[in-house]
C-alpha cells in the first residue's frame, strides 16, 4: 500500500514552489540521522504525562481509558484539570508515584544497551513529540526494535518484533490507530519474499531500511493529505469541523497559506472541548471562525458547504471511528446533501468491521457536567462513535483521495 503512497504530491510541490511553503512539514519531519542515532527528543512537559506514559502499568487509572489519556495529552487544551479531577474521584493510584520515579532511569538506560531495551519506553519517548501521532511513534519504536535487536536469525527477529508490537498494542487496547499502525508495520516490513534469499545481515538492514521508509511516509502523510485536499476547498466556502484533528488543522492551515478565503465553524466538542483548541489555532491563522455548541449542528448546517472531520480509525467497511458526535453530524449533513470529507492517514486503516455503534470496544472517558450527578443517573461515557460509509463522501488519505469502498480494497490487498 505504501509503495503507492501519493507522496509525489509533496515532491511536485517542492519542485514547483519555494521551500518556505513547507515550514510545517520540515519542522515535523525528522532528519534521518536523528532516526538512526536512537536519541528521540526528550520533551518532558508535564506531570500527567508520566501517569499516562507509565510503562509497567498500561492503564494506570482503570476508569479512564488510556485512549483518552493520550488524546488529552495531545490536545492540550483540556489539560490536567479534569484529569486531576477524575483522578481525585477515583482515588490515588499507588503505582503512580513509583512509576514516575522508575520512568526516568529506564529512559536513560534503554537505548544503547540491547538487553534493557524496552519498546514501551522508546514509544513513549517518541510520543512526547507534540506533532507526532501515536501510531507513528509506535512505528518509530518498532523500527528501533529492529535496530537494537541482537537476534541472529530472521525468525528470531520476527518473533522479537512480534512481541514488541504485541506489548505496544496491549499498552492501549482502545487506540485503533496504534493497533493498526503496529499491524501495518508488521505486514509492510516483514512481508517480503526477497528476505529469504539473503544472508541475515543484509536482510536485517533491508528491514531497517523499510522500517525507516515506513516511518518517514507516515510522518509525511499529514502533509500529503493537506495537499490533496486543497482542490476541495474553494473560495467563499464554509467548513464545519468537529473535534480537534491535527490532519484537519493541517488541511485548513495549508488552505489559509494558499490564500483561500473560507470560514470555519467549529463545534465545541464536549466534554473535552477540543473544538475550542481548534478555534484558537485557526484564529491564530486569521481564519474566520465561529464556535458552535454541539447541538447547533443541524441549525447551522444549511450555511455549511462541507464537513471536515478527522478519524481515530478507518474500518474495513470504509466507515470511520471518530470522536463522539461525528455520526450525528454525518447524518445531518447527509440528509441536507452536504459532502462529508474525512482526513485520515493510511496507518489508521484497521482490520475492524463494526456492524453498529455497540460493536466496538468502548473507549470510556470522564464527563464533567459541572454539577454533581446523582448516583442513580447513568452517564453515557463512550468517547467515540462509528460512522457508516454511506454517510461519508470521500476520504483524504496519503494514498490519494478515496471513496469509502476503496479502503477495504487496500486492506485486502495488504493483508491477503
Amino acid at each position, binding site marked *: 500500500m505504501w509503495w*503507492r503512497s*501519493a507522496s*509525489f*504530491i509533496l515532491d511536485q*510541490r517542492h519542485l514547483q514552489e519555494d521551500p518556505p511553503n513547507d515550514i510545517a512539514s520540515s519542522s515535523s519531519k525528522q532528519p534521518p540521522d536523528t532516526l538512526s542515532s536512537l536519541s528521540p527528543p526528550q520533551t518532558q512537559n508535564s506531570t500527567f504525562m508520566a501517569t499516562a506514559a507509565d510503562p509497567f502499568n498500561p492503564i494506570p487509572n482503570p476508569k479512564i481509558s488510556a485512549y483518552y489519556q493520550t488524546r488529552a495529552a495531545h490536545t492540550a487544551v483540556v489539560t490536567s484539570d479534569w484529569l486531576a479531577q477524575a483522578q481525585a474521584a477515583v482515588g490515588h493510584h499507588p503505582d503512580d508515584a513509583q512509576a514516575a520515579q522508575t520512568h526516568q532511569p529506564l529512559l536513560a538506560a534503554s537505548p544503547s544497551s540491547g538487553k534493557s531495551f524496552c519498546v514501551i519506553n522508546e514509544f513513549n519517548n517518541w510520543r512526547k513529540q507534540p506533532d507526532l501521532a501515536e501510531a507513528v511513534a509506535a512505528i518509530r519504536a518498532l523500527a528501533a526494535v529492529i535496530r537494537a535487536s541482537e537476534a541472529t536469525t530472521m525468525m528470531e527477529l520476527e518473533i522479537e518484533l512480534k512481541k514488541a508490537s504485541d506489548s505496544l498494542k496491549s499498552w492501549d487496547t482502545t487506540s485503533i490507530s496504534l493497533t493498526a499502525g503496529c499491524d501495518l508495520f508488521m505486514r509492510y516490513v516483514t512481508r517480503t519474499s526477497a528476505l529469504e534469499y539473503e544472508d541475515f545481515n543484509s536482510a536485517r538492514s533491508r528491514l531497517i531500511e523499510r522500517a525507516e521508509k515506513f516511518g518517514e511516509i507516515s510522518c509525511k502523510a499529514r502533509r500529503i493529505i493537506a495537499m490533496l485536499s486543497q482542490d476541495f476547498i474553494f473560495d467563499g466556502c464554509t467548513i464545519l469541523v468537529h473535534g480537534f484533528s491535527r490532519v484537519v488543522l493541517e488541511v485548513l492551515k495549508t488552505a489559509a497559506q494558499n490564500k483561500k478565503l473560507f470560514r470555519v465553524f467549529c463545534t465545541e466538542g464536549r466534554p473535552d472541548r477540543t473544538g475550542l483548541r481548534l478555534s484558537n489555532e485557526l484564529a491564530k491563522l486569521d481564519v474566520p471562525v465561529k464556535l458552535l455548541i454541539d447541538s447547533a449542528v443541524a441549525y447551522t448546517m444549511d450555511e455549511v458547504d462541507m464537513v471536515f472531520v478527522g478519524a481515530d480509525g478507518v474500518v474495513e467497511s470504509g466507515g470511520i471511528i471518530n470522536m463522539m458526535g461525528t455520526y450525528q453530524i454525518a447524518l445531518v449533513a447527509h440528509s441536507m446533501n452536504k459532502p462529508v470529507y474525512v482526513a485520515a492517514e493510511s496507518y489508521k486503516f484497521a482490520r475492524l468491521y463494526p*456492524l453498529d455503534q455497540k460493536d466496538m470496544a468502548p473507549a470510556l472517558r470522564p464527563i464533567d457536567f459541572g454539577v454533581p450527578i446523582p448516583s442513580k443517573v447513568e452517564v453515557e461515557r463512550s468517547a467515540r462513535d462509528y460512522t457508516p460509509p454511506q454517510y461519508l463522501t470521500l476520504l483524504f488519505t496519503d494514498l*490519494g483521495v478515496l471513496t469509502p469502498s476503496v479502503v477495504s480494497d487496500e486492506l*485486502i*490487498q495488504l493483508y*491477503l
Partner: protein
Amino acid sequence: MEARRASRTVSDPKVRHVGFFTPDPNPHPGRTPLASDAPVSNSLSPVMILPPRQPSDRTAAVPVPETGLRRQTGADQVPVGSYNPSESLLSSSPLPSSPSSRVGLVDGEFSEESGGWLRRSESGNYASSLPDTMVERAPENSASAAPRLESKKSVEVTGKGGKAVVEEQNEVQSSSKPLKAKTTKAERRALQEAQRAAKASGKEGNKSAAVSQGAAPVKPVKQPAQKKDGPPVSVSVVSFDKKGGDRPPEKERKKDVPAPRMQFDDKSRVQKAKKHAVVKQTEARNRVELFRHLPQYEHGTQLPDLESKFFQLDPVHPAIYKVGLQYLAGDISGGNARCIAMLQAFKEAIEDYSTPQEKTLARDLTAKISSYVSFFIECRPLSISMGNAIRFLKTRISDLPLTLSESEAKAALCSDIEHFINEKIILADKVIVRHAVTKIRDGDVLLTYGSSCVVEMILLYAHEMGKQFRVVVVDSRPKLEGQALLRRLVAKGLSCAYSHINALSYIMHEVTKVFLGAASVLSNGTVYSRVGTASVAMVANAFHVPVLICCEAYKFHERVQLDSICSNELGDPDAIAKVPGRTDVNYLNNWANKENLQLLNLMYDATPADYISMIVTDYGMIPPTSVPVIVREYRRDHVFL
C-alpha cells in the same frame, strides 16, 4: 502501483488524476506539454476533453479496410484536443488485427477467432476450456459416443410413448431395484410420483414430443443447452471443429473464457429457439412469459428412464450417473453438498479413467469431464459454485505437465480435487465460522432464512462457546428447508423460534442480526441465493438490522447481475400447486390443462448489495463492494492452488 506512479508526471496535484482517472502513461512524449499546460483548467478538463474523444473512438471502431488511412485520421485527431493517449491506443490497435473486430458484434469477433483456429488446426482434437465445445464435440469424435446418442433417441421415443413407456419403466425399475444398493423411501416415492406424472402427461407429451421430433435430424449437434456459453460460440465452434481444431490452450483460453459470460443475454434468446430440439427432457408447456428463457422441464418424467439405463454400457461413469440421479431426485441439495458430490464423482471417474489409444490425457479427459458436466446439467442446472469447481478442475487438467505418466497425472488430479474440497469448502467454512462468531454477542436475536449449512455451523459453534442468544428460523413454502435446520438446532439445545416468511415484518423488530447463506456472490455485490432471501434482507434493512451473508470465496463469481430474471432456475411448478398432506386443497389440481394459468416456482433471487451490511468469507469480513477484489485475488491463487 505503476498506474499511480505514472500520474506523477502531471504537474499539478489534482486529485482527480489519483482517484478517478486512468492515469496518463505518457507513451507519446510529444503530448506531455499539452497535459502540463492544462493544469489551470484541469479541474474542468474531464468534461471539456471527453467530447472529442468519443467521436474519434467511434470512427476508429468503424471497419474500414484501408489501414493506413485510418491510422492517419487517428493521428489527425490527436491535436484536436484530446490528451488522453488511450484514445490513440484504441484507434490504432484494432486496425492491424482485423477491422471487423471492433464492431462489437459477437459474430464478428468469433469469425475472427475461428479464422485463427482454422489456421492453427491440425489434429482432430483440441483441449478446450469451453464446456460447450467439448460437449458438442465429444459425441462426434469419440467412439463411445454412439451408444450415447442412441440412448438419447430412445429417451425421445419414450417421451413420445404413452402407457407402454411407463410399463416398460416399471419393469426396468423393478429389475434394477435389487441391484441398486440404497433406494431410500424418498427415492421410491419420487419414482412413483414420476411415473404418475408421466402417465398423466402422456397425452400432452405426445404433442411436445411431436414438436421435438420435427427437429430431430439436427439432434446430434444440439445438446440440452443450459450452458453458460453463448450459442454463437457453440455454433461456430462446431462448424470449424469438424475440420479439426488444435489450439494452444493457455493463450486461447484467456481470450475465450470471458466471452461467453458477456453474451449471456444472447444465449438465453437463442437457447429459446433451440429449445424445441432438446430431446432429453420434456418441456413444461405453461411457462411464465418472463422466464421463457430458462429451462423448465416436467419434473420426474425423465428419472425412470435414466434409472433404467443405470447398468447399460454408457459413456457416463456410474459414479457420475449416481450423483446426477441424486440431483435429479433432489436428494442432494445445497451448494456445498452438490459441489462436493460432483467433485467426488469426478474423482472416482478419474481414478477409473484410462487414456484411449492415440489420445493425450489432457485433451481426452477434458472432453470426458465436459460430457459429464453436460449430463449433470441435464439433471439439474449447474450452480455457480459448481461452475467454479469445474473451471478449477479443467484448469488443473490442462496445466498438467506432459511429462507426467498417466497414473501420476491421475493421482495429481485426485489430490487436487481433495485439496479443493478440503481447502475451499471445509476449511473455508471453519474460517467463516470463526469470523462470524465474533459478531454474535450475548443477548442477540439472530434470524436466519431457509437452511444454510454455514449458518448452522455458526449458530452451533456460538452455542458451544456458551454465548446466550436466540435464533429465529424463517422458512417458506414449498421447500420448508428451515424445518430440518430447526430440528437440528433444537436438538442441540438452542432456544429457537420458527416462523414463515409471511410473518417476517412482524418478527423483525426484535431481531438484532440476520445471518444468511448464499448460492453465489456476484461481482457487483449482488447476492444470489434461495428465493426469499432478498425480501428478508430488504425487511431487515428497513428495520436497520445488519444483514450478514456467509459465503465461501469459491462461490464468488465475476459475473454481474442486476435482477433475478436473466439467470435463475425454475423449480417444479407442481410443488407450489399442491399442499402436501392436504387433499382438500385441490383447487389447482389440473392446472397444467389450463392454457391461461402459469405457475412460477423460482429457485433463486438476487439481493442488491445495498441491503447487505457485510459478507463473511474465508478471507475475512468484507463489505459487498469488495467482492471484485476477492475475485481477483482468488483467481490468482486459483492458478497455483
